[in-house]
């Protein structure tokens, strides 16, 4: 039956939403630079460096290191 893979897929999507939240103090591994959503962190940092030196502006991108700068 072709329906089964679709049902399994839908159930797994629903299940993703049920996974528990990662607590604020459990984000050490997520904070590592290689956990960023990009293929090559080294290349990205070079590109960001070039961008900031050419445009005299920085930020607006993802950055390694967790924690909340709020407050």
């Amino acid at each position: 039956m072709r329906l089964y893979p679709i049902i399994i897929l839908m159930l797994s999507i629903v299940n993703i939403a049920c996974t528990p939240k990662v607590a604020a103090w459990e984000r050490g591994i997520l904070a590592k630079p290689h956990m960023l959503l990009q293929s090559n962190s080294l290349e990205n940092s070079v590109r960001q460096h070039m961008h900031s030196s050419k445009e005299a502006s920085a930020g607006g991108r993802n950055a390694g290191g967790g924690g909340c700068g709020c407050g």
Partner: protein
Amino acid sequence: MTNANAVKIGEIAPNCPTINQENKLPFQADLYKGKVVYLDFWASWCAPCRLSFPKLNKLYKELKSQGVEVIAINLDENRADAEKFLQENPVEFKIVYDDAKQCPKQYALIAMPSSYIIDKQGVIRMIHLGFKAGNEAKIHTDLLALLSE
């Protein structure tokens, strides 16, 4: 994210349950009655925490003789990371390792770093979430205000 169990301003600072081998009680608010306590939750991977440490150390050195105690509870998954950071950035205030991660649960922590300023009666008076350069001036004012009570 809000949490109904989170400790609030005006509440007595909760004690933390038994956690690790060296410090049977990593934070017991009763022990610090009569002192103004800056209780900080931190980890070495947390960029604002790293930023705050030299500034907290300066505050501590200035105000410890007046009765300020700084207690920083480390929440690193790997304790060696914290020890490496502390070797590079030595501080004089008390560091406690919470291996079982019970204390942040007790306080229902929602941000890193989170700091609680506790007055001489053991009541939480201010809560700071996160840390940005310049926050130390506000913390300094808050601590002085509580010291003078």
